[in-house]
């Protein structure tokens, strides 16, 4: 994948498609595994990971350790589970159709 991507670079545009998938990181914020496409910038992954880890730590500091955090935006849902100081984070882009008709989510 890495070898091929040297030859087939994505189009020169700043527009980034939000992928659905997950990634894991260790307690230092280093990305360990990812099911997200390589077109999704690694800086974004790190930014998400950093904020997630910071929230777990901040909760711990407030005497309220958390095992899971769900962050709901208008167009994206992030679900993060704590993993021995690190975390696994799931990205689920939200669509207007889902919002207008929540039953769509349940359909196979």
């Amino acid at each position, binding site marked *: 994948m890495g070898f091929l991507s040297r030859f087939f670079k994505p189009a020169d545009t700043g527009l980034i498609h*939000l992928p659905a998938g997950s990634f894991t990181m260790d307690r230092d914020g280093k990305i360990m595994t990812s099911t997200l496409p390589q077109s999704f910038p690694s800086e974004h992954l790190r930014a998400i990971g950093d904020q997630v880890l910071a929230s777990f730590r*901040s909760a711990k*500091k407030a005497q309220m350790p958390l*095992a899971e955090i769900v962050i709901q*935006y208008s167009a994206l849902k992030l679900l993060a589970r704590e993993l021995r100081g690190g975390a696994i984070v799931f990205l689920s882009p939200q669509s*207007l159709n889902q919002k207008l008709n929540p039953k769509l989510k349940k359909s196979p």
Partner: protein
Amino acid sequence: MPAQPKILLLDDDQDFLDLYREMLSQHLPSMPEVRAANSGGRALSLLESEQFNILIVDLNLPKMDGLQVVTIARRKYPQLRLVVLTGIRDEQFRTRAYALGVDQYWIKPETDQEMGLFMESIDSLINREAQAGFRGVQSKSLVDIIQLECLSQSSCMLKIINGATEGKIYIQSGEVIDAEVPGVNGEPAFQRILSWKTGSFETLPADLTRVRTIFSSYQGLLLNSAQAIDEAASLDQVATAENGAAPAGAPAVGNVASMLTEVSQMEGVEFVLALGVEKNRSQNFWGLENPKPMVEFTRQTLDNFRALGERLQVGELQQITGTGPQRKVAVAPCGNSELCIGFPPALSAEQMRDSFKNILTKWAS
């Protein structure tokens, strides 16, 4: 706003700019002045120096993409109408564009009919701007809007959004027949909606199957609601004067104190923390011995994830929920406050979501 409407077109394709500039300036009845920009930076500097009614923006742009331009334009120029006109047929970008506050999302027209529809929609945006002069209810109160709808004998549904809460008022042939906020219907829901001081509204087609639950005339209804709001406000003032302090030693006053009490009595609530935002940095709490660490957690978490949302261009941060062995917690911005509510760990995720939604509704009211 200038007498002659002004439209700013943003696209990196010069042929497209030339074509649409001609189309819009010569074929729209309002004969708008159309300016063009071929980069996000150029468009933002034009917006800085001149006043425009509408910005029509492509998404696929080099360097600064269309979503970035939309994010900045919506924040800096809330009155500006934003229209996305793009070749990208992708449901996700449409969702994200609407989440960032665009008014319309168009795929670049390919047929005469589509072009006609696009031109009509731009014309209607310009006309709405000229006739109404407000976006949402910034310069008109909700009472004004309801009176206008009722006087014109119209049938419609008013959808009113106040923070995370949504309310609906059903009007049929100039009469208010029903109202709805999460968990409440009829006249109490109408009164609750009317107590909202800010928000945005949308007029939607009437729901003709809606069952009538309100039988008072709209004038009587408005009078009753105004009276109820006045009474509630004066009761709050009396309570504050008598008690002198908020529950649990919090330095709350008026509404916040009574809201804290009300929320704390809701099933499953273990603690409540309400933080003022911007200039008002007040901290009101119930059920916390030492609120400082929780204040830090709430502020830091909301600030961090708001910044992350802006970076990812995914729209407004709606809420954050956390689950731990000792307790569950829900955090959300709500009007001029930031709320953090603690729940017992045994509560199911669905129960917590429902309870938190009710709390947000009450708080927004």
